[in-house]
């Protein structure tokens, strides 16, 4: 990888520092070796093991083991890098040519060639059961232009596609398996070309995968297989690791770190992710239809203290939807909202907002969410705002806010991030986006800037485009970003080579087990 800018170099170095401070994988003792079964405590049953029909962000932790993607990303920065497609090129702004790696086969022996890729992309794009049609909206047609080459004809320039093809849309499923499957979906019988092949799935209990002996990456994977035990109660999951029944648990809440570090058999690894706690706002109705009130919210929050108090310091203060280490981060935008309660009060007065008027914001009812709310209530109070959180379970609260009911003026929730940042912005800050709770219009220059961010392939041009997008989003204060949560993974000391990634969805590429 060539480092093109100073900022990128800094990002990479800070990434390296993170892994160094973890006593991390790069410094593991001894040479990696094959064998053993990696036993993982997973927090949620997958919604489906078919990448096109699933729904939950928590599915990736399973999907990545069985399906390889056309494009992969660098763990530290999420910059696209070759995967099943060994190279790609925009021959013109609306033509993307993908060259497929030779000699790769699916777990069932079906060759992974241009035909198989076309079959998958067509299915993801237009099958009624596909949940990812919107991801491939810019693709007009997929053509087989060689035995190992596909050409994507686009109806509009879209350089977000490599990033998109590193997610669900780029996970390749065996066409043979899809054609044979009941209803054309492989929810319960996944066949991919990933490092592990599927063995079994007992709902809410266990998922077992075993090593793909014909995997294309040399010497990978190391373990003979992975056994995921599905344990929704994270405290219980953490106990299963300290008791030695499992080897690894991911997505732990920060408060678990101190507890789990007491166990001498366990080590903890953490790193920044795109997962950002934020307050979604409905700018279609009062009081957040007034930009000054929205800006006041942003000034009212002491993000440094929030990180310390609510997230045990295991987070990065968020001033926009991208963290420092991301390739498209913009340091200038990050300066827009320093902690300034006096400024917040002033803005509220200018907006004609009567001090002490109650603002109702939705939230989730779990322990960690409530703790975050308590801290925010106090911070808002100091800026003259009387915020009341109305809590409900996740499914209920988010449906009430984003769905037709339009309950509350805001929602304290989180955004999980996407491999390409343009998706993050178009899914939240365009007029008809589902995560624009009020479906209210945004300034035309913002929509134009989001389009612009997808127009060029050049990473410097894209970075500038994203700076504009982020500036517009934050100047309009369409969202109140709070903090990027660190990925917190606890594991048995014999687990080696685990690296956190910026997406925050674990991949086990280089993991091996000491005997």
């Amino acid at each position, binding site marked *: 990888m060539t480092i093109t800018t100073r900022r990128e170099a800094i990002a990479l170095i800070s990434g390296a520092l993170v892994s160094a401070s973890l006593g991390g994988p790069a410094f593991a003792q001894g040479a990696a070796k094959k064998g053993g079964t990696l036993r993982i405590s997973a927090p949620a049953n997958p919604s489906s093991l078919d990448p096109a029909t699933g729904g939950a962000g928590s599915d990736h932790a399973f999907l990545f083991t069985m399906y390889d993607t056309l494009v992969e990303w660098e763990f530290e920065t999420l910059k696209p890098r070759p995967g099943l497609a060994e190279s790609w090129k925009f021959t013109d702004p609306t033509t993307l040519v993908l060259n497929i790696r030779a000699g790769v086969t699916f777990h069932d022996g079906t060759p992974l060639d241009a035909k198989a890729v076309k079959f998958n992309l067509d299915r993801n794009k237009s099958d009624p059961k596909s949940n990812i049609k919107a*991801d491939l909206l810019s693709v007009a047609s997929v053509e087989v232009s060689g035995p190992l080459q596909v050409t994507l004809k686009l109806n509009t320039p879209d350089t977000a596609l490599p990033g998109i093809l590193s997610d669900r849309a780029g996970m390749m499923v065996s066409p043979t398996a899809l054609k044979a499957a009941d209803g054309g979906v492989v929810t*319960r019988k996944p066949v991919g070309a990933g490092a592990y092949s599927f063995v079994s799935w007992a*709902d809410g209990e*266990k998922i077992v995968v075993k090593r793909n002996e014909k995997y294309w990456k040399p010497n990978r994977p190391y373990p003979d297989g992975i056994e995921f035990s599905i344990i929704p109660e994270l405290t219980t999951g953490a*106990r299963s690791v300290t008791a030695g029944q499992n080897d690894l648990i991911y997505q732990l809440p920060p408060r678990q770190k101190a507890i789990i570090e007491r166990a001498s058999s366990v080590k903890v690894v953490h790193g920044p992710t795109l997962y950002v706690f934020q307050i979604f706002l409905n700018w279609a109705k009062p009081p957040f239809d007034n930009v000054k009130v929205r800006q006041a919210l942003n000034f009212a929050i002491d993000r440094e203290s929030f990180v310390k108090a609510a997230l045990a310091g295991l987070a990065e203060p968020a001033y926009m939807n991208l963290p420092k280490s991301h390739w498209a981060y913009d340091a200038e935008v990050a300066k827009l909202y320093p902690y300034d309660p006096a400024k917040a009060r002033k803005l509220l007065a200018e907006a004609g907002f009567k001090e002490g008027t109650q603002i109702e914001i939705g939230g989730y009812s779990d322990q960690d969410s409530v703790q975050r709310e308590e801290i925010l209530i106090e911070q808002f109070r100091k800026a003259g705002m009387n915020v009341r959180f109305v809590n*409900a379970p996740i499914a209920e609260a988010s449906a009430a806010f984003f769905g037709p009911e339009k309950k509350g003026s805001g929602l304290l929730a989180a955004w999980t991030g996407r491999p390409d940042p343009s998706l993050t912005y178009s899914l939240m800050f365009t007029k008809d986006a589902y995560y624009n709770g009020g479906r209210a219009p945004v300034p035309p220059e913002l929509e134009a800037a989001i389009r612009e961010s997808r127009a060029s392939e050049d990473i410097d041009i894209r970075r500038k485009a994203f700076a504009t997008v982020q500036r517009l989003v934050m100047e309009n204060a369409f969202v109140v970003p709070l903090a990027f949560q660190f990925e917190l993974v606890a594991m048995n000391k014999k687990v080696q080579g685990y690296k956190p990634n910026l997406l925050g969805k674990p991949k086990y590429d280089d993991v091996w087990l000491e005997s």
Partner: protein
Amino acid sequence: MARRSPVKVIGSRLLQALPVILLATFMVFALLKLVPGDIAVTLAGDNATDTRIAEIRSIYGLDRPFLVQYGAWLGKVAQGDLSQSLLTGENVATSIGRAFPNTLLIVVIAMVLALVTGIPMGVIAAVKPNGWVDKLVSLIASVGVAIPGFWLAMILVAEFSLKLNWLPATGAKSFSASPIEAIRYALLPGIAIAAYGMAEVARQLRGALLEVLSSQYVRTLHAKGLSMSRILWQHGLKNVSVNLLTIISLLVNRMLAATVVIEAVFAIPGLGSLIVRGAIQRDFPIVQGVVFTVVVVVIAVNLITDLLCAAIDPRIEQ
């Protein structure tokens, strides 16, 4: 009045059970539809759009009127099909078939422990009421009733799994594959639930025995010169066995309910975890299936208890 044949009794009781099953499943279905939150949003995925959500509703038939959806579910049940999870497509019957033995094993262990400890406690407390043994038993029973099961569970795990490493902290093993391993896994959760049962058995049995022992015919037995132990074991316990059966049947129901929390603490893939997952995700076929199963179990337990009681004590009107 002439006694009816047991077959007729069972038949009529089963007929009475039908409306109960209908009512219970209907109410739960209605509740699931009433609470906000929509599985269509979950099904539509991370990058949901309004159009996609509407599309999902029509694909899965979630846009049909409420009664039609319930009717469709009921129609399938009548044909012996509990239908599939909306989310993962697994047959609900398969999920329940896998989960139920795990829950059953915990309840059986808890019940055995509760009886083995609760009965002797109740008996010795009743023999010398208000003595120090009785007071001790009352104290233990009060503590047993008051302690929250989940708290006891965590204390047990901290001590016996994490510190002493005697028993596993989480999970379950299949009983049919390896009975001893399965019991090892189910022991701590069983104990956590048994504490309440033990207390309840001891208290109720003490009360019932005291009443029997102070009755006139016991005085007659004393007068006839029978020893205390013969009175207690031959006459006393026989007379309270109906009370005991009733306690057991109530406990089965309570313990089934308690597994919801205990299974979460121990990460046991049983009926409790299943219904929690179903309810949180609004995956109503799962919730309906579990409710249906539990209602059938409760009705069966009550029926068996009634029949046994009648067999023991012919005075009970059938």
